[in-house]
């Protein structure tokens, strides 16, 4: 099968100006992926499906990744020449910047007809709070429907053009997106026979808040 770079070049030859980039995987798997811009993601996806030498007719998996805001510290060396003619003085300057986070959706594509794959596509939202819209690829691959609903449910990515975008695992009216990194789970009492640390603190708090009821005196066997 073609490498991601070759696929990217053919996509650009067919759709000039499309935002397609190769994201390299430096690990031993070396499974490089294609990062698509949201504007022409659906056109690129349709090309990948219909191209006679690719024929990626099967989307096996859609998943999400949450990239929170990340503080990056960059160290640069600044050399200032010594006016007395000695060796230049080297100082390190540290700059901190916040790398803005995003939500990412990953698609794994295979070809049932030509028996090859996977080709990995990535789509990224602009941020994690208010610009979380991405084009749905369900019109291209029907198997994305439930999995995009799952990504919507657990990560909060809004897929425009999805035929039936509702929560699928949690109930309607649930407010949170549990797979996000900053999700705070409900304060559920969790029973441990010999708790310690946070679990012990939680158990003590729950016991103190509970009124003396019929179950309070009975220790569970």
């Amino acid at each position, binding site marked *: 099968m073609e490498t991601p770079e070759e696929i990217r070049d053919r996509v650009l030859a067919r759709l000039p100006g499309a935002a397609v980039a190769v994201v390299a995987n430096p690990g031993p798997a070396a499974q490089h992926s294609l990062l698509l811009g949201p504007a022409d993601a659906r056109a690129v996806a349709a090309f990948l499906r219909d191209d006679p030498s690719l024929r990626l007719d099967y989307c096996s998996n859609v998943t999400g990744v949450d990239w929170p805001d990340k503080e990056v510290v960059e160290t640069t060396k600044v050399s200032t020449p010594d006016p007395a003619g000695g060796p230049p003085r080297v100082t390190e300057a540290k700059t901190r910047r916040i790398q803005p986070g995003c939500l990412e959706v990953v698609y794994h594509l295979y070809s049932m007809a030509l028996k090859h794959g996977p080709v990995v596509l990535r789509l990224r939202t602009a941020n994690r709070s208010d610009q979380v819209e991405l084009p749905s690829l369900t019109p291209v691959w029907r198997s994305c429907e439930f999995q995009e609903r799952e990504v919507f449910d657990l990560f909060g990515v809004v897929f425009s053009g999805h035929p039936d975008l509702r929560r699928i*695992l*949690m*109930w*309607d*009216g*649930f*407010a*949170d997106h*549990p797979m996000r990194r900053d*999700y705070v*789970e*409900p304060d*559920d*009492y*969790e*029973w*441990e*026979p*010999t*708790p*310690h640390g946070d679990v*012990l603190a939680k*158990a*003590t708090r*729950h*016991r103190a808040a*509970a*009124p003396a*009821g*019929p*179950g*309070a005196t*009975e*220790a*569970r*066997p």
Partner: protein
Amino acid sequence: MTEPAPPSPPVTDDERAELRRHGILLTSIEELYNWGRSNSVWPLQFGLACCAIEMIAASMARFDIARFGSEVFRPSPRQADLLIVSGTVTKKMAPQVVRLWNQMPEPKYCFAMGACAISGGPFKQGYNVLKGIDRYIPVDIYIPGCPPRPEALLHALITLQEKIRGQSLSGRAAPRFLQPDAACAYPVPEFGAHDLEPPRNPEVWQPPATARKEGA
């Protein structure tokens, strides 16, 4: 004034066995009634996860739950006596389980089968699994295991039969369905924005004491 006559001692088991040897069956309504209902405990045909597979295995020929009169799995809660909560209760499923329990007529009994139904099991640190069905409905027998073998379910059934046979039909020790003021409907939790509301039924369940000294 004369002292009231002391109450005559109840018939002992030895005397009853002696009478049976002579062809006389001496029993009480209570005993007969409990014998009858302990041998026809009909479970609700209801499974949630892998524990249900063991429950199904218990009903098949090798383990044969019919030996204990419980082979009639009823597909309607209106006809069932026993709710076997067999498997993981997700928070999305919990209101339906409580509603099924409310729809069952008294006398009714409940098994928490497996680690998940007892405490959430391997999923208890998750956000989406109820940490024990006993937070909403009263559980008669806990069956530990992941999943419990069919023999464990049969043992729970035998234990339940012993419990039913030991119940008296009057007085304070009478079962729930013979007490006029006891509740047989339990509040069904609602889906909230972050969790089930309420997260537990305080009438049924309170956080239990832990083995470790608290506040230390």
